[in-house]
């Protein structure tokens, strides 16, 4: 995260799909759930795309006024500067526990968490496993970029073998640091989980698939089906030491071969 010189002038929001007087249909516009502001994310970062996909899905279901989001600790810590609905922060990793408390006392609201891989796959493993195992009727958006971005690119549990980070300067050693964790595959064995899908935002094609998965996850909650989670493989050019294009290619050629894309579980 680069907080310097951040300007977040809030401008007028436009409805998602605007029907004009004549026969023209507007297919692409600013989602009502997303403020039209500059964001603080680095060039080529996937967070901006994922924020937008979440907001588009919320608008399309018409649930903006029912949504309560739980923002993480990490690069997306100030997500409430971009989202035009109720948001709370949560301590690092405790996000699913906070969401549990909200959903249990307000079951008619739509509650989702937005978490990174440090938040969800390291410090918050107990909370995510038990929220999933209880079958909480919440939605988890899990953004996996394989590093701790906000604190300077340290190794995450999801960092690939051999990957260089601030704390694995010669590359992650499986003997020393252990293996990358496949969270969705772990959660799939729990009967409490109802919909788990892994997507990516490294290309336009994959962005569209990610959008469908995120919409499906919210639909599961709206229909009271239970725990839904979408893992989004996302680029971190800054701490992968790559250009945005190289970072997108890395997901296609490397990251997604270890973390396979597609529906892991759906019932």
């Amino acid at each position: 995260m680069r907080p310097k010189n951040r300007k977040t002038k809030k401008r007028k929001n436009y409805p998602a799909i605007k029907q004009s007087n004549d026969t023209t249909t507007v297919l692409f516009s600013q989602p009502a759930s997303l403020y039209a502001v500059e964001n603080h994310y680095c060039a080529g970062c996937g967070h901006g795309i994922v924020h937008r996909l979440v907001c588009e899905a919320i608008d399309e279901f018409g649930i903006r006024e029912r949504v309560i989001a739980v923002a993480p600790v990490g690069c997306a810590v100030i997500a409430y500067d971009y989202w035009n609905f109720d948001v709370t922060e949560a301590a690092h990793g405790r996000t699913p526990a906070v969401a549990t408390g909200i959903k249990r006392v307000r079951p008619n609201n739509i509650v989702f968490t937005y978490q990174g891989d440090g938040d969800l796959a390291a410090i918050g493993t107990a909370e995510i496993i038990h929220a999933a195992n209880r079958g909480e009727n919440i939605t988890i958006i899990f953004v996996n970029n394989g590093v701790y971005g906000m604190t300077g690119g340290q190794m995450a549990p999801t960092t690939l073998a051999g990957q260089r980070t601030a704390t694995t300067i010669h590359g992650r050693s499986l003997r020393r640091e252990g293996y990358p964790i496949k969270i969705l595959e772990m959660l799939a064995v729990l009967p409490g989980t109802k919909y788990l899908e892994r997507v990516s935002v490294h290309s336009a094609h994959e962005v569209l698939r990610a959008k469908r998965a995120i919409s499906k996850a919210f639909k599961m909650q709206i229909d009271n089906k239970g725990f839904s989670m979408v893992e989004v493989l996302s680029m971190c050019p800054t701490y992968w030491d790559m250009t945005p294009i190289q970072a997108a290619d890395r997901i296609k050629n490397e990251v997604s071969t270890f973390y396979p894309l597609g529906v892991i579980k759906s019932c």
Partner: protein
Amino acid sequence: MCGNDACGEGAVLAGCRFYAGYPITPQNELTAYMAKRMNETGRVFIQAESELAAINMVFGAAAAGMRAMTSSSSPGISLKQEGISYMVGCELPCVVVNVQRGGPGLGNIAPSQGDYFQSVKGGGHGDYKLIVLAPSSVQELLDYTFLAFDLADKYRNPALILGDGLLGQMMEPIQIDSGIQPKFIDKPWALTGCKGRGPNIIKSLYLGDGVLEEHNKKLQEKFILMKESEVRAETFHTKDSEIVLVAYGSVARIAKAAMEMARSRGKKCGMIRPITLWPFPDKAIEEACNAARKFLVVEMSAGQMLEDVRLAVNGRAKVDFYGRMGGGVPTETEIFQRIEAMA
């Protein structure tokens, strides 16, 4: 009714809508009681996967505008400190109950007052205070738990009930329904979905230059208000006593018996029982200094409240201490012997 059950009933009467707990002795009766009563009354009970999860579930329920509580005993309360600090920072009300046991570490399951510092000096990170209520009977466990919800809502700050294993486990007859109604207040800041209004945000993160300092000043103003309005204490014979005992919680009852023993033998002995440990009843102690030559602080610790008594006395009288640790409970004879030695 046992103390732990009474505490739970106090929460039910106060309109607690959400409880999350995790097993730890000697507070297990409270979790079991809440499991039964919250479900009976159509409210939410969750046995959490950890103390961390429990306090953060309470965070969520409180952010959503509901009255919420969690309870534990000393080692578990240490784990909750992260969540408590966040709740103060986010200005979220809740009630936390600590049925203290011996420490440090895993310690034992016997009564203790070793968590005084943790309770009144902050506990977690950052500059903050909690209203800390110290009941000394089963009835008070019910009454002060009930009161704690009103105070938490009033100040948008967590309130702590500081009991101990002795209070939690002992049984006494109590009056359950006092006829007092909980003081529910509007919570326009709560997360309910932004229908008909702009988005609400709950946060403790303030990154801009000086913004966090302003937020801290606002919190400190609330703490000053609490100090002005919420001090509670009970005093016995402090106007004319040369020796004044200071004790809280279950120990206060033993100390009171020792005071009565001393008075029956002609000694000018009185007592102050702080009910709020924070804000601390400095004024009651200052006033007692008019007559008192000596204070005797009695605790089930190595001397923690002792420091606050010394600050309030401020050199105007001698302050002595008698304490037991690690599950040891002072007897009235032991305290009486100390009084005799001082006189």
